[in-house]
């Protein structure tokens, strides 16, 4: 092999490596964007939840605390995406709510749906090979399941997993 062809082979290996690395980071960013979208929707949705609860009632305080938790997760995800060289997708100006809300009971129902959406949205990060990303996703799934159980008064057997296919 000539020196020139050795150089060219090394360059090609290096570019294959960097292409693989870039594919892996694209994959990671996509998983984070999915979680970010759910956290943005939850941050918006909890504003609606709170607006249908009596101010200064314990449920209003709970909704406020949960809203703050989602905003913090949203901001952490945006920073993680930026650190990987990605651009966090912006939040929508408004969201079509998954359930109609005009009473406090329906507001609680919305909080439950938002938490379930957040649980599923972290599955992609839990599947990531990076320990920190996996840990963040799994920790957030636990936090969402706790909030969901507090609103609904019951647990789900397999939070975040689609349907009954968990086995």
């Amino acid at each position, binding site marked *: 092999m000539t020196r020139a062809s050795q150089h060219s082979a090394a360059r090609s290996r290096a570019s294959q490596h960097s292409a693989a690395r870039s594919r892996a980071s694209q994959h990671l960013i996509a998983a984070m964007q999915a979680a970010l979208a759910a956290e943005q929707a939850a941050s918006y949705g909890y504003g609606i939840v709170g607006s249908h609860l009596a101010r200064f009632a314990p449920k209003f305080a709970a909704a406020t605390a949960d809203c703050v938790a989602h905003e913090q997760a949203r901001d952490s995800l945006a920073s993680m995406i930026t650190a990987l060289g990605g651009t966090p997708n912006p939040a929508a100006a408004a969201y079509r709510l998954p359930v109609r809300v005009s009473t406090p009971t329906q507001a609680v129902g919305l909080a439950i749906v938002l938490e379930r959406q957040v*649980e599923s949205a972290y599955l992609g990060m*839990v599947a990531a090979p990076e320990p920190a990303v*996996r840990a963040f996703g799994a920790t957030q*799934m636990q936090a969402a399941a706790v909030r969901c*159980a*507090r609103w609904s008064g019951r647990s*789900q057997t397999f939070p975040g*997993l689609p349907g009954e296919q*968990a086995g």
Partner: protein
Amino acid sequence: MKAEHTRRALLVAAASGSLLAGCKGIAALGPVPPPGPDVITLEHAIASEELMIARYRAALTALVRQGRHPDLVAGLLTEHSRHLAALRSRLVLPPRLATERPRPSPTPPPVPAGHAQVLDYLAAAERAAAARLLGQLQHVPAPLAQLMASIGACEAAHAALLGGTRPA
């Protein structure tokens, strides 16, 4: 799909190795391969879930003796049984090993007296199990990590429910 089958096949080979390690007969077939870290992690998760179920059974007995309605605890126990079934389904054992002498159920620590103390006993176990799964899911393939994350989320929710629901 194909990748998943390959994965399962590997888990079979490794699992039979880990369970047969103490059996002399297998020596004739050559050295037994050591189980992979994912198999060991899965076996630990299965053992933890078995111990959790033993705690719940002991707690149920204690609550009934106290004359309490154990509806909440019975419901959570059902979910743990489904967790155990889901975890076991990920560990594919050769038929002979799977049917041969099932392991005896583990002995849980003694259940404290008093209704609130029984619920605390379970809540503390749930919190510890949820925290342990966060570490364990780092050592397994992605689909199993997702199952473990979901089970850990359920256990964190159980701890919250046992500790009292949000006031109305």
